[in-house]
């Protein structure tokens, strides 16, 4: 190995060490919670007349911004269902649409959930879409899948189809996106727990911890 090569290797190793060291120092002195958590006004994230479930007079309000075609949202949803059920007397869960541009079937899926909502079955469609995400996510004929799900939920197919194919939900879906972006949503799922922002899914024990913290306040 000649001298030039040795110098090059030494400089490269030194630079890598500096960068990695600097990055790890930065992350040590800024706890993860502070980097991702920020508090926003609850009114901003709640939206008007958004689908919700759980307590009527909640101590804790969880707002989720989600995309039905996002695998992370689908993975996080069963945990949310368990947590909301566990704390149903004190927690209200609100769903906001945040379909990402990279998911071609996300907006149609959001429309399907809204069309089911007109017949009082938003959460049934919501759960079904997540449970069967892999069946429809890459489908080139989502409408057929949506109709199949509507039938399986016992919805009036005619009405569902009319609503699903109309553009009456464009506004509520777009409002979800603009409110989300204004509140600092950069990825799905994002959650606001009494306005505290959490980006990405969390496990059950972390959820319980956050909810208990809010209940104590």
């Amino acid at each position, binding site marked *: 190995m000649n001298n030039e090569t040795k110098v090059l290797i030494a400089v490269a190793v030194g630079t890598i060490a500096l960068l990695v060291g600097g990055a790890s120092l930065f992350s040590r002195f800024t706890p993860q919670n502070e980097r991702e958590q920020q508090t926003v006004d609850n009114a901003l994230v709640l939206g008007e007349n958004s689908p919700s479930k759980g307590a009527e007079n909640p101590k804790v309000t969880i707002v989720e911004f989600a*995309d039905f075609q*996002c*695998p*992370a*949202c689908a*993975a*996080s949803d069963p945990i949310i269902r368990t947590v909301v059920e566990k704390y149903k007397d004190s927690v209200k869960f609100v769903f906001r649409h945040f379909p*990402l*541009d*990279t*998911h071609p079937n996300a907006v149609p899926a959001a429309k399907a959930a809204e069309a089911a909502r007109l017949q009082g079955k938003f959460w049934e469609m919501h759960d079904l879409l997540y449970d069967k995400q892999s069946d429809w996510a*890459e489908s080139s004929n989502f409408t057929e899948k949506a109709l199949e799900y509507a039938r399986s939920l016992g919805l009036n197919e005619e009405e569902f189809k009319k609503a699903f194919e109309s553009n009456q939900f464009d506004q509520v879906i777009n409002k979800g996106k603009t409110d989300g*972006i204004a509140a600092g*949503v*950069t*990825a*799905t*799922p*994002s959650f606001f727990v009494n306005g505290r922002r959490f*980006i*990405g*899914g969390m496990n059950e024990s972390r959820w319980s911890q956050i909810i208990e913290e809010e209940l104590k306040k």
Partner: protein
Amino acid sequence: MLISTYSKMIKNLVLKYGLYIAWFQALISMIGSLVFSEFMKFAPCLLCWYQRIAMYPLVLILAIGISRKDKNVVWYALPFSLIGTVIAVYHNLMYYKIIPQEIAPCEIGASCFTKYIDWFGFITIPLLALIAFIIIDVILYLYLTYTKKDE
């Protein structure tokens, strides 16, 4: 006999046209990826960007090497295509779910898992990138061994 004829043929081909083929492959990949992102509006994901960083310089490096008749150009080009290959292999392993990935949140903008194209049921953008890098690797490697033997 037959094998040695073939290997001679390959050697001649590589020595004569190898650098041109590698350059042309890099050029096609660059133009192709720009068509995907700029005309078809598929946003490139992070791993795609890293692969672009490895692929785009090859177009210039190989072109300059060829025009200056510099046999050493392989030494400048091969590290880029090898680094690109490593990233492409990693991307494909995740893309085709051969190595499990943690369920990361879906970011606004491009995801490394979005299937923008799916030709014949298996050809995707990450696969095209991997094939391109491998073609360039193989040609440059053969060129390197053949030119070394001749020295």
